[in-house]
């Protein structure tokens, strides 16, 4: 399991502050929904945790350590972009990726592949967008990584694929050993998945809390709160 702490983190791109003095603690064993419109800083937060960016100011730590090759072994990161080689088959992708990680679970990978209805011999290039998104989730969830980072796993894919992706996250998530952080601007379908939600606005925390508690206290769905925060 992993606890992630952002302490007063600022990340700039040119003149733009993608994150602006952000302080957040992600508790272990949660599924945190990272919510906000495009440009709010969601992907930047995930990339800082994945160790792909360094903060300009402040500190990001995973179990007390700054992201490094050492922490990367603990982190499974699903990027938003299509990063899988098109010329490989589905099976080749899994063989290729599995070689990088000690915590790769071949049995789970096989099970997920079946669940997703992916054909192991199909070429990635020939897969539909929804099928490619399913494959990305298989890649991310086949590891027993303590920290799983999912950047817009539902974005721009067909409804059946979205449903499958959500089911795979729920069924593979191990609440006693894993922490999941997932960004999305599609709150309607995913809000039931989240134990905690973090609304980001212009690189700052607009609202953060336990999803069930927010519903109970405010009598509103996370989607309604989303509309309130970004109105």
């Amino acid at each position: 399991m992993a606890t992630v702490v952002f302490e007063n983190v600022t990340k700039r791109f040119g003149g733009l502050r993608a994150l602006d003095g952000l302080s957040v603690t992600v508790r272990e064993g949660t599924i945190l929904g990272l919510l906000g419109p495009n440009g709010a800083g969601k992907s930047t937060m995930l990339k800082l945790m994945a160790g792909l960016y360094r903060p300009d100011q402040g500190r990001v730590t995973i179990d007390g350590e700054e992201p490094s090759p050492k922490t990367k072994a603990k982190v499974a990161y699903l990027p938003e972009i299509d990063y899988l080689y098109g010329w490989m088959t589905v099976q080749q992708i899994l063989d290729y990726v599995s070689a990088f990680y000690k915590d790769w679970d071949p049995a789970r990978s096989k099970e997920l592949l079946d669940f997703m209805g992916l054909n192991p011999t199909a070429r990635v290039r020939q897969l539909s967008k929804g099928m490619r998104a399913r494959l990305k989730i298989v890649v991310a969830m086949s590891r027993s990584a303590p920290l799983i980072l999912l950047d817009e796993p539902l974005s721009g894919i067909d409804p059946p694929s979205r449903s499958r992706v959500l089911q795979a996250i729920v069924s593979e998530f191990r609440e006693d050993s894993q922490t999941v952080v997932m960004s999305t601007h599609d709150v309607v379908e995913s809000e039931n998945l989240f134990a905690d939600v973090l609304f980001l606005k212009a690189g700052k925390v607009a609202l953060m809390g336990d999803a069930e508690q927010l519903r109970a206290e405010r009598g509103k769905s996370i989607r309604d709160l989303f509309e309130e925060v970004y109105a």
Partner: protein
Amino acid sequence: MQLKLDQHAPIYMQIIDEFKRQIARGDLRPGDRIPSQRELATMVQVNPNTVQRAYREMELMGITETLRGQGTFITSDPVRLAEIRREMAGRALVGFVREMHALGYGCEEMVAMVRGTWEQVVGAAGAGGGEPDGNRGV
């Protein structure tokens, strides 16, 4: 199990209510095995911790019993089951009376209308056998 979540109230409470409803309606019977927490979470795409909380509360309320290694079962305690049915009926009644009252109907009028509607809705179907065993008694 189908779950229509309205998301304005805590989800664990809605899960509990759905089980209570199914028990009250006789869709779930005493001693029936219910899905494991993980099965339900996957089925309805809800956070496993939320489902865990619902199951824990149901256990505390005496709605379910968990047998080690065998799963979770609806209680066979007739008193508890009768209470659940009564509770669900009470809620339906409160909603109905509030709505009718807001529409301007008085008590006697309401009772008379209920009789009439009963004939239309249940009376006709009852002849053709709406409830095969006629008794979903708990």
